[in-house]
């Protein structure tokens, strides 16, 4: 009876959902809090990563000093040398990049010596002060490796660069090819070299050309070979000097042999500007997209490519050897290759294919 009555007044059972709401709400809020915590961690974690990217430990501290540190040639050599240094747990500092362009290679050399670094990779002129600082560095036990242009008078420990006699022979080979049809009788050849280039080096190039051509054609049929030293005192002087050749010279050369990448580019531009394409043949030095394109378009006949990366790597290897053994090879040669029209075409095609892929 009692149960019946109770049933009459309270038929449905009331399900109190407050507990469900409390639990669900708490779970949602805790989940949201955790998500926030994770997001915070990710954000702060990202920041730490950024900092760690720049923090490298190293055993040796080397300096890379180049007169024309902005040139592609130098940049390529530096990048390869930097990567090689990392492999040896060493740090290669581009000293000029941090201190600005107003500092000359000489000044940088002085700073590098005063900074008591473990090694110096130098690429530049061979002036007296340069020799002085290199000698001081060598005296203080700092390994010095010279790239491309040797500073023979100094106590540098190693020279990494091309064999200039071999370079001369390569130029001679190109001259031979260029004069195959016309013969060498009346042609004139201009060899553009750096003003800072040691006398012996430039003479070596001329000698190699003459040796080669004499061997091939006999002494009588040697063309006229002129050595032109380009003023590269400041950044625009090289371009002006090359233009002067086109303006002032009554008889323009038939073949221009450029001993660095800047001269190659300047000569190429001047030939176009003065509408002398086909009349003046250029044999360049170094390879980049502009030069390749010019060869492909037959504005430049060919270029001598050197393995700049190999050059950079070798410099660091030499420094490492010096630091660990106390001595190293005084000369490490760098391979050269002739890039003519067909080779340039091939390289461009390969590059395009890679890009398409």
């Amino acid at each position: 009876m009692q149960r019946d009555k109770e049933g009459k007044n309270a038929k449905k059972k009331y399900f109190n959902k407050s507990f469900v709401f409390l639990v669900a709400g708490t779970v949602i809020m805790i989940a949201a809090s955790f998500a926030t915590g994770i997001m915070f961690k990710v954000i702060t974690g990202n920041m730490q990563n950024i900092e760690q990217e720049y923090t490298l430990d190293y055993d040796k501290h080397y300096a890379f000093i180049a007169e024309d540190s902005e040139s592609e040639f130098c940049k390529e050599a530096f990048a390869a040398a930097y990567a090689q240094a990392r492999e040896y747990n060493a740090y290669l500092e581009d000293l000029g990049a941090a201190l600005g362009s107003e500092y000359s290679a000489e000044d940088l050399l002085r700073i590098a010596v005063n900074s008591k670094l473990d090694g110096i990779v130098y690429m530049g002129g061979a002036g007296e002060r340069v020799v002085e600082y290199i000698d001081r560095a060598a005296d203080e036990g700092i390994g010095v490796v010279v790239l491309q242009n040797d500073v023979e008078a100094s106590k540098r420990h190693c020279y990494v660069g091309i064999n200039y006699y071999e370079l001369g022979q390569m130029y001679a080979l190109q001259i031979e090819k260029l004069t195959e049809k016309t013969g060498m009788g009346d042609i004139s050849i201009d060899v553009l070299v750096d003003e800072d280039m040691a006398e012996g080096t430039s003479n070596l190039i001329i000698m190699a050309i003459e040796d080669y051509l004499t061997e091939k054609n006999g002494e009588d049929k040697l063309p006229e070979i002129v050595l032109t030293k380009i003023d590269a005192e400041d950044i625009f002087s090289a371009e002006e000097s090359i233009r002067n050749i086109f303006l002032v010279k009554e008889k323009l050369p038939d073949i221009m042999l450029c001993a660095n990448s800047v001269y190659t580019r300047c000569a190429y531009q001047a030939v176009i500007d003065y509408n002398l394409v086909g009349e003046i043949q250029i044999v360049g030095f170094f390879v980049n997209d502009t030069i390749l394109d010019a060869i492909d378009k037959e504005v430049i006949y060919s270029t001598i490519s050197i393995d700049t990366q190999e050059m950079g790597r070798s410099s660091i290897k030499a420094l490492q050897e010096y630091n660990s053994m106390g001595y190293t090879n005084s000369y490490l040669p760098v391979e050269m290759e002739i890039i003519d029209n067909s080779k340039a075409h091939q390289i461009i095609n390969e590059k395009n294919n890679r890009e398409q892929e």
Partner: protein
Amino acid sequence: MAGVIRKKWDNSSVRTKLTTAFIIPITLMFAVNIYMYIGVNTMIERVDEVYIANISLNDLSNDLVFLQNSMKEYLESKGSNALNDYYKADQEFRDGLELLDLKSSGTAVYAMQENIKHQSENYLQVAAETITAKRGRNVEKYKATYEESVQLYTDLQTCINALNNEQFKKNTSDYNVLLSSLRYMEIITMVILFFIGVVNIIVVILITKSMTYPLIDLSRAANEVAAGNFDVELERMDSRDEIGIVSRAFTQMLQSIQRYIAEIKESVLRESMLKEHELVMENRMKEVQLKSLQAQINPHFLFNTLNAGEQLAMIEGAEKTTEFIENMADFFRYNIKKINNDSSIAEEISLVDKYIYILNVRFTGEIRYSKDIDEDVTEIRVPSMILQPIVENAVNHGIRDIEREGHIDLKAYKDNGYVFLSISDNGTGMSSEQIEKIMSGESPGESSPEHTESNGIGLQNVIERLQIFTGQKDVMEIFSEGKDKGTRFVIKVPLHV
């Protein structure tokens, strides 16, 4: 586990539930706030730290300038103050170098810092040599070393500036990262606080709603009960909190009320049935009483006989006898006719008249009879046979045995909503005990049926019938001032029964 917590939750008080429902979200919000505050604060501290390196490099540069100047001043003046300044500057510069620690700023910066430190060592050494040479008056040497120190000083300043610049670039990039991170954190903080706030509000609303729902249900039920509907449905509550207790108590109360209502209804029904029964019984009894009273008188034979006598007397020409017998016959006819019904006061008075006439014939005019009647009341209905028994009583017990002339006075009047019928005699009177006995019903009155000359209706019968008729107790009063002072009976009947 969840079941146990659920059970605990259901059994906890409303206060505990509400407190928990508020405390948990608030604690969570508080924890999130604290966490975010710490996170943002840490980042702000790092932003502050960003440019500390620049400041210390600037200080180092200033120290170097001070050192170079103090050296130059000493070389120029050789003053002790300048020398003191030099030593002081030397120490400060060394301290500054010691403090310089940019290991965490990246390889390029660290490498530059190392360069500066090494160049500084050179510079300090050259400067010290210069000072020593000056003190030793070695002019050639100090000139040469000063030149060298100037070169080193220039290089050093350049390197410090370059480092400062590099550090600034890095700091700017770090600052940008920090700033964007801070902005992200700000957005996340706002979003999460907003989200938790909204969830919080929803949870509190839902919990409050869910907890107060039974109360609302209860108040609805209470309103229905207040409106008189006890057949209310309430959802059954299993929770042990206050609301559950109140809800169950209300349900029980409702059941109790319903039970009591049912019981009261039953008892009222029983009582009314009982009353009805009692009334029927009473009526029956009255009927029986009346019947029995009636049964005491059987005047039919006498009445018929008297009619025959009246006719005989008329035939014989005996007028007085005829009148006497006629009155007699009327008297008994009235008895027969009216005994079952009520009659008017006029009829009652007429019967008294006839009765007195008969008595005066029997007792040769010994009774002087007078009446004072208010004509307004003559049509008022009263039970029949109420005056005659009283007059009979007055004659038999009042004036029969007195030597003097007997008087009977009859009055009828109305006063204050009542009709008063007064019968007074000048007889022997009554003692108060006698009056009390009559009124209390202990004595049926002298004109009992046993009395041979009575018409069979006693005073008690008159009183009872009047009481039944009027529904009142107070229907008759008897007044007597004592022996030989006569008696007065007053009947009191409401004007409208």
